[in-house]
């Protein structure tokens, strides 16, 4: 039941493959480059790919939030931090080689293999019926009813984060 | 400062005036005719007195307008001329002169008194080679950084 390449489904499949590539390439750039600013760009690319995957998982809202928060906020923040803290890149590059690289590859490979193995071999049971369509409206409703605790927690976490980061940044400044 | 009222020498015979100006002047004050010279008071002092003079004039609320260096090659001297003016109302211009030896052109800086003297002295240093002792930054300013000549000296050959 392979769809034709030129049917809408086929095109969607191609786009999905492209998205996977984008995600993987982004992840590779994010972890393997020497310069941090490049790895942030890689991270941004990876997140764009992930947002696309979310779109395929029929939750466009989360996809958009992924772009808005990860690419627009987190990546920018990290880029700012790199500018402010300006790591010594030559030194960094020197340290990258050797043992830690091998160790890291072994760790990462092992973890992903284990997880992938578990995923492929798992017996996942699909539910008989889904309670709703998981649309934006439903998310909103459940956020304010069933999962209101989560909602409150998010806001508290964010508030604490804002206050904490402002306090930390200011304290460092006064230390001069 | 020693004050010698030499009187206005301008009205005297020309020959005498010429003679007077040929030899370097003695220290002291001269009241000059403003219409003719553009200054009211002409003060000749020793190099070590310039800071004191600047302090006195600063106390009177005067402004240091410019610092000029003149190379008197024949007399083997540099003359440093400080122009002071009064911006507080009445017109009053004082010119303070000090002569230093051409071989050891050291003169104390008035930077501490007048911040604006910084650039003027720096310029005089690089154009004439007059060393302003105590100046915070005697570096090349208008000339290129590698200039090892003093263009305003009279014996300067380009």
């Amino acid at each position, binding site marked *: 039941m392979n769809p034709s390449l*030129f*049917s*809408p489904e086929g*095109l969607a499949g191609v786009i999905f493959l492209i998205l996977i590539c984008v995600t993987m390439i982004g992840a590779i750039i994010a972890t393997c480059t020497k*310069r941090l*600013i*490049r790895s942030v*760009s890689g991270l*941004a690319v990876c997140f*764009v790919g992930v947002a696309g995957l979310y779109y395929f998982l029929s939750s*466009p*809202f989360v996809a*958009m*939030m992924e*772009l*808005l928060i990860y*690419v*627009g*906020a987190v*990546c*920018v923040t990290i*880029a*700012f931090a790199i*500018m402010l803290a300006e790591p010594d890149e030559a030194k960094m590059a020197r340290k990258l080689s050797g043992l830690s690289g091998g160790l890291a590859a072994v760790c990462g490979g092992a973890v992903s293999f284990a997880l992938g193995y578990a995923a492929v071999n798992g017996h996942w049971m699909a539910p008989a019926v889904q309670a709703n369509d998981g649309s*934006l409206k439903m998310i909103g409703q459940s956020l304010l009813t069933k999962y209101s605790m989560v909602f409150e927690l998010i806001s508290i976490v964010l508030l604490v984060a804002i206050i904490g980061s402002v306090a930390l940044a200011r304290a460092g400044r006064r230390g001069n | 400062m020693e004050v010698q009222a030499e009187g206005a020498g301008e009205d005297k015979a020309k020959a005498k005036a010429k003679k007077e100006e040929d030899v370097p002047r003695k220290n002291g004050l001269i009241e000059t005719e403003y219409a003719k010279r553009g200054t009211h008071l002409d003060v000749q002092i020793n190099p070590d007195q310039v800071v004191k003079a600047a302090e006195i004039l600063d106390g009177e609320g005067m402004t240091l307008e410019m610092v000029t260096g003149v190379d008197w090659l024949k007399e083997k001297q540099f003359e440093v001329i400080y122009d002071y003016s009064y911006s507080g109302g009445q017109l009053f211009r004082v010119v303070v002169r000090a002569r230093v030896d051409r071989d050891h052109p050291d003169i104390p800086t008035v930077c501490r008194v007048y911040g604006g003297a910084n650039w003027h002295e720096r310029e005089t240093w690089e154009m004439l080679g007059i060393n302003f002792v105590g100046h915070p930054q005697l570096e090349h300013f208008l000339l290129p950084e590698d200039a090892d000549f003093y263009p305003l000296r009279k014996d300067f050959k380009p």
Partner: protein
Amino acid sequence: MNELIRLLAYMLGLAAFLGLNLAYLGWVERKGAGHFQRRTGPKDVGPYGLLQPLADGLKLMSKQLVVPANADRALYMCAPILIMVPAVLLFVAIPFGEHLVPREFNFGLLMMFAFASVGGLSILIGGWGSGNKYSLIAGARAVSQNVAYEIPMLITAINIVMITGSMDLNEIVRQQGAYIWNWNIFRLDKSLLMPISFLVFFICSLAETNRTPFDMGECEGELVAGYHTEYGGMGFGLFMMAEYANLVIGCSLTTILFLGGWQSPIGIFPGPHWFLLKMYFLIWCFVWIRWTYPRTTFWGLLNLSWKYLIPFSLVNLLLTALFIKVF
């Protein structure tokens, strides 16, 4: 298959629309600047200088691509392309007419903001990649300004979402009626502060598109040319085109959210022409403002955001919620 053909047609149409806009907005700006300043603006190339964009484009394209020695080559080359992508992609969601929508998303508004936030990162990358301190400062400024003004802009947009109950851009337009008093800007029955809210949104879109008086990212008086100091040729051209693309998007969004999109102000002949009319009027306002005002400082900008825009938008949000709940 039909769907594919429709999409293809839309893509072609959009490409033409975009290309014309990006080229001729530059002409409009220069001509406008000229006349605001007692000059004539471009005049010699073609009638009224209408072929000027072509000449400019040719000039930019024929220029040598110089990569500065200090630059991070990959990032330097990527940034102009990266900044174009979201700017162009966003056109897909804009409803030009009731049935003239390339693709209707039911979260179009959110998508606008999501993609717009990506643009900031590419400015930062371009500024950093140039290896120039001016570019770096400018990039940092531009991005922090974008982030700061996204807050009041989002809050104001949430207002509209609350009023219309939808994030679908076309739906938002549909809900605004045919007459001028039915547009969101004058929906005083929903919130008394709607005109001010429009002003807030307008100012924010000025800031988001890095236009004077908020062009902190490219203030030539201080930072030479800002984040595109080191770009020449088409690199610079892409940055400029992205600026105009963002301009079009910002004005379209303002039109859609507040000025009734393709709705007619007099109740007859609704259609894309009204949309374009309103959008170009807003663009003209942008040009007008640019050639009238000096630039603010960074603190002036943050002051405006925190002291005026955010309080106003929050108050408006509360008022709207109250009105919706009460009436």
